């Protein structure tokens, strides 16, 4: 019976009506999405194109360059740009390393150990995290200045600031650790492992996506930071990171000479992060959803 009804003209018509409806709604969805992605991508395309424009260095009213070349990139070497780049890179790598270790240890502890005030501590950190970090800026500056970690020596100071509150970012990885059965820890401990060995040999290899997610987010923070970096380096070029350094080229007296170089710098900043994400995006997505879906 059911076989026959597939060939029933009235049913076929109904099917076609459904198909047409789906196609229409899909078309609308795709148009909206295409518009959104154009809006989204336009600034990036603009910056890339401007970085290859060599006919002049100031802002112009058109997008596609009249003359193409690598001059802007070459000229970057004559400035402090690569110094800023190195500053940012060092800060980001150190932060990524230290913050990852702290976050993972913190999450494992909160997930596995039961101690007095554990819940209190978690609530306290949740509330603390609701305050904007900017509130601490002035006091942080005072402290770092007394330690001699401002202006030209801003990089170690920045690393300190970045990792100081990293224990509070335990939510995602704790969520993942909570889904790993406790009996695995227990089995490993009976098998002769210490708590630390359980974490490094059993839990972390299983938590690869979470580790990568933690590293990436820890790297991204300092890589794109502007406000703290600007505040702590003040006007000392040697202590600036790329965001602060590049921004200093956008002042009224510099912008006409530096604008295309600014764009070239911007492209260079984006490259490592883009590569990182392209390689690790599979894990990143798993990591973001890792707490919710049991692996």
């Amino acid at each position, binding site marked *: 019976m059911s076989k026959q009804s597939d060939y029933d003209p009235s049913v076929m018509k109904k099917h076609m009506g459904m198909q047409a409806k789906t196609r229409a709604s899909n078309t609308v969805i795709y148009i909206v999405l295409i518009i959104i992605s154009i809006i989204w991508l336009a600034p990036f395309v603009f910056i890339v194109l401007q970085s290859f424009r060599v006919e002049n260095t100031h802002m112009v009213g058109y997008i596609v360059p009249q003359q193409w070349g690598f001059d802007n990139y070459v000229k970057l070497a004559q400035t402090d740009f690569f110094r800023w780049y190195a500053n940012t890179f060092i800060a980001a790598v150190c932060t990524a390393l230290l913050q990852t270790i702290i976050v993972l240890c913190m999450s494992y502890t909160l997930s596995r150990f039961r101690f007095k005030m554990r819940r209190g501590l978690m609530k306290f950190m949740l509330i603390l995290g609701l305050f904007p970090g900017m509130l601490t800026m002035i006091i942080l500056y005072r402290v770092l200045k007394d330690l001699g970690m401002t202006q030209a020596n801003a990089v170690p100071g920045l690393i300190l600031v970045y990792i100081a509150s990293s224990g509070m970012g335990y939510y995602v990885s704790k969520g993942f650790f909570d889904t790993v*059965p406790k*009996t695995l820890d*227990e089995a*490993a*401990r009976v*098998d*002769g*492992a210490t708590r630390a060995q359980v974490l490094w040999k059993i839990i972390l290899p*299983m938590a690869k996506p979470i580790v990568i997610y933690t590293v990436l987010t820890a790297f991204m923070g300092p890589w794109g930071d502007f406000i703290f970096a600007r505040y702590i380096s003040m006007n000392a070029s040697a202590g600036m990171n790329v965001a602060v350094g590049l921004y200093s080229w956008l002042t009224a007296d510099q912008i006409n000479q530096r604008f295309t170089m600014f764009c070239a710098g911007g492209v260079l900043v984006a490259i490592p992060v883009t590569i990182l994400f392209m390689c690790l995006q599979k894990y990143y997505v798993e990591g973001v959803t890792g707490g919710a879906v049991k692996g």
Partner: protein
Amino acid sequence: MATVKLTNVVKIYDNNVTAVHDFNLDIADKEFVVFVGPSGCGKSTTLRMIAGLEEISGGTVEIDGEVVNDLQPKDRHIAMVFQNYALYPHMTVYDNMAFPLRIKKMPEDEIYERVTHAAEILGITDYLMRKPRALSGGQRQRVAIGRAMVRDSKVFLMDEPLSNLDAKLRNQMRAEIILLRKRLDTTFIYVTHDQTEAMTLGDRIVIMKDGYIMQVGSPEEVFDRPGNLFVAEFIGAPKMNTIKAKLVRGDGEYHVAACGAVLKVGGEKGQMLRDMNVPTQDIILGVRPEHMVLAPEDDANAIDCTLEVNEMMGSEYHLHVVTDDGNKLIVRIPTITLTHDQRESLVPGVKLKVTCEGKVMHFFDTESEVNILYPCQAPIK
């Protein structure tokens, strides 16, 4: 190979719930002891205290004469198999089994020897390079046993290792554990809620309820001489029939008045009652379903009842009957003892007479629920 001794062991959780009360047990070297009881009776907690996974709130646990209360699990020289296998999912079967040896920094060639040897015994050689998720439940549990086997541990702990397997596989693995035990020849402590596993595996069975030990004994002891009503009902399937009755001391003979019938207590049990000079009293009469028989219609001293449900199990019938005064009983009749006509007549609603001999009766005190002939003090009701 080691003895295990628990003295006055107590477990009190943070929320002030006492999970184990004053637990005393001596486990001999190479003994197979089974902790059995309904869920929440504290059997797993006790095992985990021996393993070091649970803090001991009071008393001492000794392994091989050494008090281990404050030792980490890794320093107790124990191996443990978990209910959910607890295999490391990112490692191959080989690496799983090699893990405890690698932690000990054993040379790789010796690890190879031990792992392949254990794999051969367990019949998992073909799966050594697979990840646990590519294995079936039975294979996984074999790997978990293998991981525990490769080490020279003093005590082998098993926490409901067969509970996650289907019934058929469970029977098969049960037999394999018996063989494994012979081969390993070490001390075993096995936790289960399944009385069949307890009966078939254990040298001694520890029956627990609400954190108390109800009885410790060999399978024969706990089956034939249950110390109290709880043990009597817990061991044996279907569970023992219990009836409120009266034990009457007559002229040199004892009778039980139950469900409107008077049953004579003859033989050994009658003699014991006489020797102990038990007075006339209200009791709870316990009779196992397989010890009840159908009585002829003209038997005046049998219990009158009505058949409610008739379960044909193949080799036997489980007859669920209701006595005239409302007691529900189960009677197990081997199919082979019934004629064709008798089988045909066993339809719900039919009137039957059932009875039992004195030697299969168990007498429990109505207050303390303790077996009058083989008292084993149950600390709580």
